[in-house]
């Protein structure tokens, strides 16, 4: 792969936002109440908006004429660079909210830091995203507190989701050979430096929620170099169907 580090870095951010946005969009029309249907729709659109900006920028960096649609609709699963957490199935309401909490508790401080990037475009996209992720964090945290500290069933479901998703959390803080030079240049964020912030947020919410923080065991990884779970293929088959079946179709 000959993509420049900046292109790879931007695609990782874009793919993560798109895949999570798509996951949230799957709830639309299926949520337990209309208020949460709209909440999922809103959060999904925040993420898809972030993805659009990042894809457009990635296309610019690449300079081969690929626009946001080409990058989103015409790449196969192994070319996707999203973290594995966001492609995990929605499960029940608690599982989706927990996944959102785990990601937003990371993405909020991440974009806060990226808003100070030396790369003006990434900084601008991050500055817009940080407000969106602040709400995702607050909304998901309030829900997890109520589900965890709610009924016996809601507590059980929230704890099960937490245990199930935990092995996907470490990947958020990884750095590989794509990033050090960008971090050195003040363009990218060293995700590992956000670990303490994330831990603090999580510990606070989990304790309010009376949920038990799982022990760090074997951790899943590989999404950012294109090694995905089978779930991503299913997501893409739905997300990309129209452009694959009718290339170039527009509204």
């Amino acid at each position, binding site marked *: 792969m000959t993509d420049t580090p900046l292109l790879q870095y931007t695609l990782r951010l874009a793919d993560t936002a798109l895949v999570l946005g798509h996951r949230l969009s799957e709830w639309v029309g299926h949520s337990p*109440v209309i208020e949460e249907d709209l909440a999922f729709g809103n959060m999904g659109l925040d993420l898809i908006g972030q993805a659009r900006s990042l894809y457009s920028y990635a296309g610019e960096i690449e300079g081969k004429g690929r626009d946001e649609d080409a990058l989103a609709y015409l790449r196969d699963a192994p070319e996707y660079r999203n973290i594995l957490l966001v492609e995990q199935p929605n499960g029940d309401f608690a599982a989706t909210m927990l996944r959102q909490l785990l990601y937003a508790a990371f993405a909020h401080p991440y974009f806060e830091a990226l808003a100070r990037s030396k790369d003006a475009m990434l900084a601008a996209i991050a500055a817009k995203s940080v407000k969106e992720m602040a709400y995702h964090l607050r909304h998901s945290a*309030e829900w997890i507190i*109520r589900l965890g500290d709610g009924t016996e069933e809601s507590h059980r479901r929230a704890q099960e989701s937490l245990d199930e998703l935990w092995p996907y959390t470490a990947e958020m803080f990884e750095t590989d050979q794509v990033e050090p030079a960008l971090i050195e240049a003040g363009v990218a964020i060293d995700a590992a430096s956000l670990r303490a912030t994330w831990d603090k947020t999580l510990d606070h919410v989990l304790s309010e929620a009376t949920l038990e923080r799982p022990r760090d065991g074997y951790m899943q990884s590989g999404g950012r170099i294109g090694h995905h779970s089978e779930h991503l293929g299913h997501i893409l088959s739905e997300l990309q169907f129209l452009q694959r079946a009718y290339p170039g179709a527009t509204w």
Partner: protein
Amino acid sequence: MSDQSWPLWEVFIRTRNGLAHRHVGSVHAVDATMALHAARDTYTRRGEGLSVWVVPSASITASDPADKDMMFEPTASKIYRHPTFYEIPDEVGHM
């Protein structure tokens, strides 16, 4: 999950500085914090709001529709209460 046991909240939104909060609708939510979230997610999606209030619907005391005649009918014959009998000089413009 059923929302039958979730309390109802009335939602008020202030659109611009200087204007009062206006009633825009209602949401179901488990408590005040979540009602604010629901109000934000349901009623401010198109940049409508700068401030949101939620009030438990149960806290609102409403007039009885059956009292309509007693409550509101007597004012119908008192048109002199409307400020429409004054000539406003042109220089004043819109008040």
